């Protein structure tokens, strides 16, 4: 049984992915499938809402690493919001804040794409 799920919320120009549960080497494929779905639907601007993400290991971080260049090459990005401190700290250990925009709120993450939530 998987203790991880991804919810999708579509705005006009930004796709928000709500991550729930624990992201490890077993569940990372579900995040990968979610990001691939966005890519296949030409939704290259992705906000990750991590408010309900309870745990992450390097297998989860690796999914972001594997897709970030491709999404940026397509004019998009992955911006990460609302991480719990214990989860943010794993991102921080590997220096992810140098490679990704990691912000406190989903609203800030959407605004980083140059749109306001009212627009979206």
């Amino acid at each position, binding site marked *: 049984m998987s203790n991880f799920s991804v919810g999708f919320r579509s705005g006009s120009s930004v796709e928000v992915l709500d991550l729930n549960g624990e992201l490890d080497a077993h569940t990372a494929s579900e995040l990968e499938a979610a990001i691939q779905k966005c890519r296949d639907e030409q939704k290259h601007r992705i906000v990750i809402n991590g408010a309900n993400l309870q745990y992450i290991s*390097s297998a989860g971080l690796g999914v972001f*690493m594997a897709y970030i260049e491709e999404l940026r090459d397509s004019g998009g990005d992955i911006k990460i919001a609302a991480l719990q401190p214990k989860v943010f700290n794993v991102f921080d250990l590997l220096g992810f804040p140098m490679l990704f925009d990691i912000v406190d709120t989903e609203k800030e993450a959407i605004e980083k794409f140059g749109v306001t939530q009212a627009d979206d």
Partner: protein
Amino acid sequence: MGRSTYSLTVPSSTRYLEAVRSFVEKHTVEAGFSNRSVEQFKVAVDEACTNVIKHAYRGDEACKLDVSIIIFSDRCTVCIRDEGQSFQPREYHEPDIFELAKKRQAGGFGVHIMRRLMDHVEYTSEGDINEVRLTKYLDSHNQNGVG
């Protein structure tokens, strides 16, 4: 010096990682570690087990891995034991996330995370048995993240 040992054996499959983390959480909490240290143990042990499952056993779910937690008065050591392909730590290089992103590479940070979170990380191989030992002290001054 008194000590307690707890052991768990699971099949070599990522589906058991959650059970391993629960096992580590239960015993490190009981040993008196802070929430921060408990989270650090969970991540480090997860990384060690994931490496065994993916690299030592190469996804063969018929294999088993043993996780033992040894609680001392001043520290805890978690031993992860396997009989697969041994890991050569001297061949390991620190990851460069910018380089890995360019290569669209999804892995290669597990050992780095273990070393950052634990006070000691030791690898041994004797005969067919490989072991990684992850040690953290109760009064650890390791201020690296997580938790």
